[in-house]
């Protein structure tokens, strides 16, 4: 019915250090705050090994000294507990004006879950939601972690989907503060599956869920540094 909302897609090839991707998101958020009618944005990328904590997260869920972490540790402006990022995991950071998408943070979390469920469906897997445990699960294992932050309904942060990453780094933390829940990755169900196959599915699933028409950045929309 609608032609779709104009959204800029950023898909860097190489893993992006967390601090840089965070800076990009804040820049995109600032642009949308300054011009609420401007284009929305979607970043899909991978991070080098790191850990992040939500603003209200407990350090009790870290299995290491926060002053001497095994990989860079960031306390960031999103909801949720600790999580781990690394190559082989796809992260998607939609910078959206949520007023165009229902102005409802819980609904937004459900839509992000929905996008991951759509990807799993495309791969022939039946992922599920678990009431009260935001994220996407497959046979009791958590495949995707979700945590978002917003200012004046402009979102940042988003979701992380484990594709074929090494899971050993999750052992150093209690992911999302859930001690009795295992973490999984897609390649355990679909051997040989790689980032290159999943990335376009995730991109399309998010575009469809949020009614976005994705396009590459032009001119000053490009992100540097």
């Amino acid at each position, binding site marked *: *019915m*609608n032609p779709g909302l104009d959204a800029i897609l950023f898909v860097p090839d190489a893993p992006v250090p967390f601090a840089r991707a965070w800076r990009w998101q804040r820049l995109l958020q600032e642009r949308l705050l300054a011009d609420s009618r401007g284009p929305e944005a979607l970043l899909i990328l991978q991070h080098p090994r790191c850990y992040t904590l*939500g*603003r*209200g997260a407990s350090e009790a869920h870290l299995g290491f000294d926060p002053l001497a972490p095994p990989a860079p540790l960031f306390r960031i*402006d*999103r*909801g*949720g507990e600790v999580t781990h990022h690394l190559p082989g995991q796809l992260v998607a950071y939609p910078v959206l004006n949520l007023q165009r998408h*229902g*102005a*409802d*943070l*819980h*609904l*937004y*979390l459900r839509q992000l879950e929905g996008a991951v469920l759509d990807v799993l469906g495309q791969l022939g897997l039946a992922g599920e939601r678990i009431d009260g445990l*935001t994220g996407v699960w497959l046979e009791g294992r958590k495949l995707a972690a*979700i*945590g*978002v*932050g*917003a*200012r*004046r*309904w402009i979102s940042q942060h988003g979701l992380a989907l484990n594709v074929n990453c090494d899971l050993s780094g999750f052992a150093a933390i209690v992911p999302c503060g859930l001690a009795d829940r295992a973490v999984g990755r897609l390649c355990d169900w679909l051997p040989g599956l790689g980032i290159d196959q999943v990335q376009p599915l995730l991109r399309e699933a998010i575009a469809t869920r949020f009614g976005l028409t994705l396009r590459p950045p032009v001119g000053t929309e490009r992100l540097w540094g």
Partner: protein
Amino acid sequence: MATHDIFMPALSSTMTEGKIVEWLKKPGDPVARGESVLVVESDKADMDVEAFQAGFLAAVLMPAGQTAPVGETIGLIVETEAEIAAAQASAPSAPTAAPAVPVAVAVPVAAAVAAPAPPPVPAPAAVAAVAPPAVPSPPPAAGRLVATPRARKLATQLGVALESLRGSGPHGRIQAEDVELASGQSVSVPRVAEGTAAFAPAAAAAAGNGAAPAAASGQAFGRPGDTVAFNTLQQAVNRNMNASLGVPCFHVGYTITTDRLDALYKTVKGKGVTMTALLAKAVGVVLARHPQVNVAFTEAGMAYPDRVNVAVAVAMDDGGLLTPVLVDADKTDLYSLSRSWADLVARSRTKQLKPDEYSTGTFTLSNLGMFGVDRFDAILPPGTGAILAVAASRPTVVAGADGSIAVKRQMQVNLTADHRVIYGAHGAAFLKDLAALIETNPESLAL
């Protein structure tokens, strides 16, 4: 001198309470309008809460790490540095248990519509700038008492001295119940007009008194003998009402059978759909087919907006009313409309609407069904061509064309229209289609 409350915001229609993650400002810090003051978390989502007034953070009533119900006052902002000490001194600091008492503030009232809608004109650049009504200030407090607005009004109505009360709310805040108890009144359930729409009268009748709950204590802004100054919002409403005297209006009414709409409402209510959203959606869909009823008079001619934006009148508990706008009511799905409406009502209550969220309506809906009224007519808001007054749906004995007799639920709707742009036949055709949709195919609204 004025003190502004910071409320726990509603970040989702399914959010009942939120956790304060962090105060970004300390008491005494200056805050700019639009600057983030604290962070609230609900589920795995964080939101920065911003100051809607410039001034100073005077008090933090709920520390970081604590959870507060939506709408609860969690901090105070004052306008000048000199007021900080006074606000701090009178803000009770001993933490007490916080009962989750929602304070209902929004009651749709017809016949008066506040938002100064800029007249839609063909060239966007020429849209007249109409000053939005300033945010009404809470009553001035000498030696600040912490009380909900509803408690203050009740105290005035019932002649209870707030100074003599101990508040049962968080940090000793005086709640409406405290005032009612002090005056010997039975505690009434806070009335929430939105969402019950046409169905509340049945409940009131079942309670055996035949009167709407609100009748127990009619609203008044002053005591007998007083003359009370209009607040800013009331002044804005007055200007708009006076402007309507220059518009040649006519009224046309219709009786609509609502049994199928009622049945549909029962099935979607659990999904967060409100009657207001259902009616707005129905009106939006029919307006899209009747652009002549979505039109506005301008000096240049008949202005046809490029969208169907249904505004809905919501009365403010402290006087005046707003008309939050459901944008693209014809195209937006029912569930999104319901969520938008919940968000708009929550933010009207805390005076956090932006001008374009209450001034861009192209058609207005006013619903007094929850009071059981059988009919009324509304005053046309400036800059629009028509407003629809919706009364209660009530069981009625209906004679069929074949002489059969049946009991059906029926409601009366009454259209007020500017005859310069909308003629009787346009209004009547619109109502005929609206009735046909509601009577024969309401299910299509939920698709």
